[in-house]
């Protein structure tokens, strides 16, 4: 069975730097034989988490919208690529809105203990964070990592790698960056190979 890859594009800006970098990654995974799909978060209708904590008792979210079937798709993927540009030193509100909605899965895992991922499952499920930032600062992605780490932890994915490129303002966009797109393609090919080998063991 081919490796299933799901890319989430968290940018409100279609075909911008981050989505282009995600596309290069997904293309790399396809070259390695994966079935790769892309979801544009801004095209979905979902509301942010209401913080009602009802899921802490039931394990289910009281809000029924596009986020719920998306989590089913995420959980049936072998590789999850989460993409967002950096706005105000963090991920976009669209992506944060989705991440916060994973609370019902967090509750199943940590409060109700009705969901469990074995070490073997986590090893075979790889998560990558894809991001671009206009600023040149080395630390411009640092504040985004904790939420992405929490997201992959909740969903049973190993936080496998980052594909990140800063200084977009200087390069005049991702296509002007000397290495980022080639690196994204290479990482796409390589992660699919790694997952396929783990499946073969």
């Amino acid at each position: 069975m081919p490796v299933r890859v799901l890319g989430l594009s968290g940018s409100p800006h279609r075909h911008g730097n981050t989505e282009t970098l995600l596309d290069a990654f997904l293309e790399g995974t396809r070259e390695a034989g994966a079935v790769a799909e892309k979801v544009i978060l801004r095209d979905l209708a979902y509301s942010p988490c209401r913080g009602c904590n009802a899921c802490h008792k039931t394990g289910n979210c009281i809000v029924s919208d596009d986020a719920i079937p998306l989590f089913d798709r995420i959980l049936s993927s072998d590789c999850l690529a989460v993409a967002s540009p950096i706005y105000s030193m963090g991920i976009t509100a669209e992506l944060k809105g989705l991440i916060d909605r994973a609370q019902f899965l967090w509750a199943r895992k940590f409060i109700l203990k009705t969901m469990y991922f074995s070490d073997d499952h986590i090893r075979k499920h790889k998560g990558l964070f894809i991001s671009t930032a206009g600023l040149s600062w080395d630390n411009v992605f640092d504040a985004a990592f904790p939420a992405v780490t929490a997201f992959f932890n909740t969903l049973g994915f190993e936080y496998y790698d980052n594909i990140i490129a800063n200084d977009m303002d200087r390069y005049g966009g991702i296509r002007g960056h000397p290495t980022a797109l080639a690196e994204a393609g290479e990482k796409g090919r390589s992660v699919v190979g790694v997952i396929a080998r783990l499946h073969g063991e």
Partner: protein
Amino acid sequence: MEIKVLAFAGSPRRGGNSETLLDWVLQAMEQEGGVAIEKVVLTEANVNPCRGCNACEKLNKCVQRDGMDYLHDRIVDADCLILAAPIFCMGICAQAKALIDRFQVFRSRKFVLKLPVVAPEKKGKRMGIFLSTAGQNWDYVFDGAVPTVKCFFHVVDIPDRDIRYLMVNGVDEKGAILSHPSAKADAGRLGRDVVRELGTRMGR
């Protein structure tokens, strides 16, 4: 001259821990007197996320027509800007992140168009307060939120030295902050200190 305070309650949960912390600060400010407070509940304020269109870099205004139309002038006019928001999944909740990202119009004004953001008599006098609560007890639970909050304040001419923080971890269920040993006293002290400092700055 009254001290104008604009406070955002960023949590989707009404009357929860971060909003309680905010109410304690606002009560203490009110008791100092001479303060005009406006509290905005973000879930009712109709602030959509930034579309990333960058039009504000040319237009000096946002292309979206929503709750920010009402808030824009109040943000510029406030002497003290307060953001209260809980930590969800190791970051600031999505509702507050949407407001922060909409400050892009101020960032464009300040850094791209090089136009003033606040009136000259207010420059260097404004103060900001970030209030937050988190369910987890980890001491690094606020680390992902702070850089974002700094952007929020920096773009409206409130530099690091004028930002005050009160962040309380280990409070999860609604009302948990009520039994926290020091949060209420800390919030009261913070509210009083900031009003006194602003009073001095404004020559009262």
